[in-house]
């Protein structure tokens, strides 16, 4: 009862947020939070569930942003179609790079993902077709849902970001309880064990990478439509990938709400500290930000969600844990 009421209140608050905080800055922070939460959900599917630690999310985020923006500016294709196209291009790219990398494990996969993302960034920096280092500008239109653009207020972006996050969470939830989710967790535990249970880890790892790439790319299109200008420095850089990993790890990797909690804590923190302290160029915002990350990872390695879950579960869990201890080892 209490949990259901709390959930209903949270949903109502999220839906009413633009009405309550109509001014641009809170809404901007909320939109960035939703975008990073969605990226976190994407990362969580491959990193949290399937155990593939990637620092390359920005590559797929950027590919999504560039695909839809280029289709729009060069061919007048609707950004909504561009969103789908970007997702597909990103998933195919992920498959092409994931195939040769499918035997890389642990640290080696992480290193390869950084290398891949940097190759993509360098490539876009020099690719004349998509504006090279100058990037691409999305022309201003009267706006509206049909053209995926709002110029009077940020509300439209807020709700699109919310829907995108909801869809990503739904996908993650469905995956987690299906065969695919079980296989991801088996692969994360041990490749040997997974193979022993008849699981082709090459195939399932590719599935995880492609799904994550698709979701990240969809977020990229949303971001491009939101800021109306993209260049390699804004959508393809390593700090984006790192932020996505942090959001998920701090919130709780391998849990459904983890990335959302992590984004809700981290993104406002980083946006607000930057807005308040960043302009002085002292780096105080980054110091605060780093200190918080260190604190959480030292004291709550399972993330904020792990901490909350443990608190909620403490009472009923005790007798069972005690019973387990009584059995002689």
């Amino acid at each position, binding site marked *: 009862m209490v949990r259901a009421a709390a959930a209903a209140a949270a949903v109502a608050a999220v839906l009413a947020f633009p009405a309550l905080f109509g001014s641009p800055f809170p809404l901007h922070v909320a939109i960035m939070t939703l975008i990073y939460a969605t990226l976190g959900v994407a990362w969580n599917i491959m990193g949290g569930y399937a155990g593939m630690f990637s620092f390359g999310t920005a590559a797929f985020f950027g590919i999504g942003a560039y695909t839809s923006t280029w289709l729009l500016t060069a061919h007048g294709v609707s950004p909504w179609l561009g969103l789908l196209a970007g997702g597909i291009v990103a998933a195919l790219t992920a498959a092409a790079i994931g195939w040769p990398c499918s035997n890389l494990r642990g640290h080696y996969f992480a290193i390869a993902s950084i290398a891949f993302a940097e190759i993509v960034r360098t490539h876009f920096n020099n690719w004349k077709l998509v504006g090279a280092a100058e990037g691409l500008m999305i022309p201003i239109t009267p706006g509206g849902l049909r053209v995926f653009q709002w110029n009077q207020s940020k509300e439209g972006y807020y709700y699109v970001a919310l829907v995108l996050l909801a869809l990503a969470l739904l996908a993650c939830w469905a995956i987690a309880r299906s065969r695919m989710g079980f296989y991801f967790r088996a692969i994360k535990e041990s490749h040997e064990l997974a193979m022993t249970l008849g699981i082709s880890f090459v195939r399932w790892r590719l599935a995880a990478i492609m799904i994550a790439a698709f979701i990240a790319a969809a977020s990229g299109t949303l971001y491009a439509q939101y800021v109306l200008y993209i260049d390699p420095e804004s959508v393809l850089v390593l700090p984006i990938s790192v932020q996505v990993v942090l959001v998920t790890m701090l919130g709780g990797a391998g849990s459904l709400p983890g990335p959302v909690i992590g984004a809700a804590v981290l993104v406002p923190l980083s946006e607000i500290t930057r807005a308040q302290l960043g302009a002085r160029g002292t780096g105080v915002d980054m110091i605060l930000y780093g200190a918080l990350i260190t604190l959480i990872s030292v004291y709550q390695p399972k993330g904020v969600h792990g901490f909350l879950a443990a608190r909620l579960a403490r009472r009923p869990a005790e007798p069972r844990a005690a019973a*387990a201890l009584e059995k002689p080892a």
Partner: protein
Amino acid sequence: MSALLEVRGVTRRFAGLVANDDVSFSVNEGEIVSVIGPNGAGKSTLFGCITGFLRPDRGRVLFGGRDITGLGADRICRLGVARTFQIVQVIADMTVLENVMTGAFLRHRGRREAGIHAMGVLEATGLAERRNQAGSALTIADKKRLEVAMALATDPRLLMLDESMAGLTPVELREIIELLRAVRKRGVTLVIVEHVMEAVMQLSDRVVVLNSGRKIVEGAPGEVVKDPAVIQAYLGERYRA
């Protein structure tokens, strides 16, 4: 009747060391065959060559008349060969039921069907009451039991056990021997690589003895332990009558 598993002249080298040298034996449907030998005899290498974790340099492995030499471990599992590990492996952050469901998904795509199949296996392996415990919370003996359950959930025709009985108490040992007898009754053929002679003597229809990578003797457990070559290579002076 043709053999379920046929190992033909398997040779595997590691940088000059011959771990398996021209090893051949076969296992019939419904049999329990043990592979024994002193440390370094090549048991684990042979195990790896059969289950697809290692590729033999020479020789062939046939399963149900089909050549499975060099196939990936996951494909070999799908054909009906399951295995357990010397160092027990379960999925730590899954419950016992979820662990077994992961195996059951191989032949039951739906969550419900996999769950039902997994529950059946848990009943048969005596783990039903522990179904909601985390895999990491089990005792070693129960983890080994769980590993057998996960393997059985893939509906194998052949189950290969890699030193499953090491480090168990006499009571736990008796229980796992009971379990393996029950597994055989389900129609599953067993190949056991084992150090624990008590289990080998009680369970096996036949024993294959390896020493320095070669098969030195094969026969009924009672005969094998009396064989002078085996006594010299493996059992030591203590066992001389």
